[in-house]
C-alpha cells in the first residue's frame, strides 16, 4: 500500500461542493490524467481538474465527445497513468461501449457519473438516480464492475479515492455514481494528511517480458499489467482473448475469460459489501437506500422512531456488486424492507430478488428532479410495520 503524494493533496478543511471534492479525491488517489466532455451537472469536476493538474505534471484533455473521452482515458491508463472521466446522463450512455472495453481489457479506471433526471436530455440541472441499472448492465455483453455511491461532498472525496483503489485492485472500471444534488451540494470537506490516504498502486508486471503473459490470472484472479513503452509488446483487444491477449474466439476461451471477470469480483463479496447500518438487530422495518436518498431516508427513520417504530437503516455505499448475502440474512428477520430511490424502482428489483419473499419489499419510487419528501418514506415505513 502506498500513500497519496503530499505535494498534490489539499490537506485541510474546506467548504466545497461534491464535484470539487470528487476532483480532489481523484488527485489524491493519484490521477494526473483525465479526458472529458462538458455536460451538466458534472463539468465542475473536470473544470477544477483542468486548473489543478498542470501544476502537478498532469493533463486534462477536453475531447470532441464522450465516446472519445471514455477511450482516451484508457489510452492514458495503458501508457501507465491513473485516469478517469466524468459525465452525466446522455454522456454516460455514449460511454457505455468503452465501459465494456475496459471490463474486457481489464483496464483499471474510474467513470464518474453525476446523475441527472432522464431519460434523454431530461433534467440537466436536477438530480435523479436513474442510471443505476445502466451502471450495472449498460454495456453490451456480460461483465461485472463495481459501483460506489456517495451521499455527501465529504464522501465524494473519500469514496473517489476508494473508487480508484478498487479499480486498481480488481482491474475493473469503477462507476462512481454521484447525483446532481450531491455534486452541487456544498459542505465541509476534510481532506486528511496525505499519509492517511491509502493509495493502491497498479499491479505491475513482476516478470520480465520473456516470461510474462498479459492476461494470466494472478493473485485474486487479477492479472498483472504492463504498459506501452516498457518492452512487453502488450497486445490488448476487446475481442475474447487468451492469456497472451491474443484474439481467440471460441467457446472455450470465452468460458475461460468471462467467468473469471465475474469471479474476481464475486469472490471479494465480503470486501465489497460496503454499507452503513444502524439498528438492524431488532428492526421491524429496514430502510435500504443509497446516495442522496439515504439522507432523506435518515430523516424519515428518525421521524418513525419518534413514533415508536423499530426502524433500521441500511445504506448501500457499494451498490454493485449488490450485498446479496447481507440481504438474504436480513430478510427473514424483518417485516419489511423499504427502498426509496430517485427512479421508478431499479435497485429494488435486486433487493426483492435477494429478499426472496421472506419479507415485504416496499419500493418508494420517485421520478427525480428533487429528493423524496421524508413523509413519503415515513408512510412506507408505517405500511411496512403493519
Amino acid at each position, binding site marked *: 500500500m502506498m500513500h497519496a503524494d503530499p505535494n498534490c493533496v489539499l490537506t485541510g478543511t474546506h467548504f466545497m461542493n461534491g464535484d470539487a471534492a470528487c476532483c480532489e479525491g481523484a488527485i489524491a488517489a493519484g490521477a494526473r490524467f483525465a479526458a472529458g466532455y462538458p455536460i451538466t451537472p458534472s463539468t465542475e469536476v473536470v473544470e477544477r481538474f483542468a486548473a489543478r493538474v498542470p501544476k502537478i505534471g498532469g493533463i486534462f*484533455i477536453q475531447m470532441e465527445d464522450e465516446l472519445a473521452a471514455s477511450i482516451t482515458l484508457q489510452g492514458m491508463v495503458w501508457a501507465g497513468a491513473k485516469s478517469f472521466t466524468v459525465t452525466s446522463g446522455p454522456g454516460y450512455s455514449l460511454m457505455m461501449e468503452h465501459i465494456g472495453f475496459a471490463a474486457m481489457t481489464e483496464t483499471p479506471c474510474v467513470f464518474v457519473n453525476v446523475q441527472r433526471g432522464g431519460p434523454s436530455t431530461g433534467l440537466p440541472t436536477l438530480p435523479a438516480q436513474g442510471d443505476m441499472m445502466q451502471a450495472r448492465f449498460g454495456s453490451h455483453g456480460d461483465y461485472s464492475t463495481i459501483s460506489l455511491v456517495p451521499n455527501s461532498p465529504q464522501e465524494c472525496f473519500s469514496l473517489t479515492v476508494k473508487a480508484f483503489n478498487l479499480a486498481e485492485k480488481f482491474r475493473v472500471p469503477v462507476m462512481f455514481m454521484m447525483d446532481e444534488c450531491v455534486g452541487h451540494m456544498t459542505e465541509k470537506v476534510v481532506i486528511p494528511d496525505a499519509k492517511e490516504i491509502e493509495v493502491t498502486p497498479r499491479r505491475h508486471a513482476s516478470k520480465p517480458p520473456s516470461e510474462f503473459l498479459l492476461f494470466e490470472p494472478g493473485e485474486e484472479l487479477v492479472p498483472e499489467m504492463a504498459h506501452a*513503452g516498457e518492452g512487453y509488446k502488450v497486445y490488448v483487444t476487446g475481442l475474447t482473448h487468451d492469456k497472451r491477449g491474443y484474439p481467440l474466439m471460441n467457446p472455450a476461451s470465452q468460458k475461460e475469460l468471462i467467468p473469471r471477470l465475474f469471479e474476481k469480483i464475486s469472490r471479494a463479496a465480503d470486501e465489497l459489501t460496503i454499507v452503513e447500518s444502524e439498528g438492524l438487530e431488532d428492526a421491524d422495518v429496514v430502510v435500504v437506500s443509497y446516495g442522496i436518498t439515504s439522507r432523506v431516508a435518515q430523516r424519515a427513520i428518525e421521524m418513525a422512531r419518534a413514533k415508536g417504530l423499530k426502524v433500521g437503516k441500511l445504506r448501500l455505499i457499494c451498490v454493485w456488486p449488490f450485498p446479496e448475502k447481507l440481504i438474504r440474512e436480513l430478510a427473514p428477520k424483518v417485516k419489511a424492507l423499504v427502498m426509496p430511490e430517485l427512479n421508478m424502482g431499479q435497485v429494488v428489483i435486486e433487493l426483492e430478488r435477494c429478499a426472496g419473499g421472506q419479507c415485504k419489499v416496499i419500493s418508494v419510487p420517485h421520478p427525480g428532479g428533487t429528493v423524496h419528501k421524508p413523509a413519503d418514506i415515513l408512510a412506507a415505513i408505517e405500511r411496512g410495520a403493519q
Partner: protein
Amino acid sequence: MSTTADLHIHNPVEDVLRKERIPTIWCPGCGIGTTVNSFAAALLGQDIDLKKTAIVSGIGCSGRVSGYMALDSFHTTHGRAIPFATGLKLANPELNVIVYSGDGDLTSIGGNHLIHAARRNMDIMVVCVNNMIYAMTGGQAAATTPGNSITTTSPFGSFEPEICLPQLVDAAGAVFVARWTAYHVKQLERTMAKALKKKGFRFIEVLTPCPTLYQRRNNMGDGLAAMVDYKNRSKIRNGAPTYEVALEPGGEIVVGEFVDREREDYLTRMRRQLGTNYSELPPQPEEEEQEGCCSSC
C-alpha cells in the same frame, strides 16, 4: 538454390511481426498485408526505438494490423483508435504512436476523432488503409465507396458521393498528408519513413484492393487486377492541392505527398501556453511534510 537457414537470413518484415499469428485473416489478393511490408520497412529503416512504439487500431480488416505487429498493440473499439492513441501519447509523450486502421473505421464512425486529432495536431501518425468498403462486416457501402458501386447495402448502386480524405484532414490541420496505393510499395515506404520522423498529426491514405467484398460485386476482377489498375491510373503529383485529388470512379488516381508543413503540435503548444503553470514533478518521496490547506476551494 541455397536455403535461407544456410545463409542465416530471414524475411526482414518478420522482425516486427508476431510470427505466431501468421497466416493473417486477410483474403487472397487483399492489399492490407502489402502496406504492412512498407510500414515494416519504414520502421526498420529508421532510428526508431521499437520498444517505445505503439500501434493502435479500431475494428475491421485493417484493424487487425495492430495485432500482427510485434509492437505494443492495441485493438480498440470501432472508430476510436485515434482517441485511444491520443491517451497513450498524452500520458507518455515518449511513445511513437501509430494508428493503423481502415476507411470505414477512421473516417465514418471515427470521422469526428479524425478531424479533431488533426485540428489539435496531436503527435500521432495515422495510416488509413482505404479499400473503399466495409469489408469485415460483409461489404457494405462506406463513406469512401466510389459512386454507383454495388454493395450489400446499395444493391442498386450507391448514390452517395465519396469523401476525399486528404482534403478533409488537410482542412482540419494535419501537418503531413499523403496518398499512395498498395502498388506503390517503395514510395509508401519512403513516405512512411518520412512521416515516422515528423512531429504532429500525420495522415497517409493507402488505397488497397478488396477483391472479395468490393471488386467481385462490381466486376472489377481480383486483387491483382486492382493492383494493375492502380499502376495504370495513378499519377504522382507531390504537393498537389488536396482539393484536386478527389477520387473519381475510373478516373485518375492522384498520389503523392500533398501536404508537408510545420505547425506546433498539441503537447508543445500546451507547454508553451501553460508556461510556468505546467510542471512535470519528479516522483516525490513519501516522507515529505505538507502544511496547511489552500483557500482556493
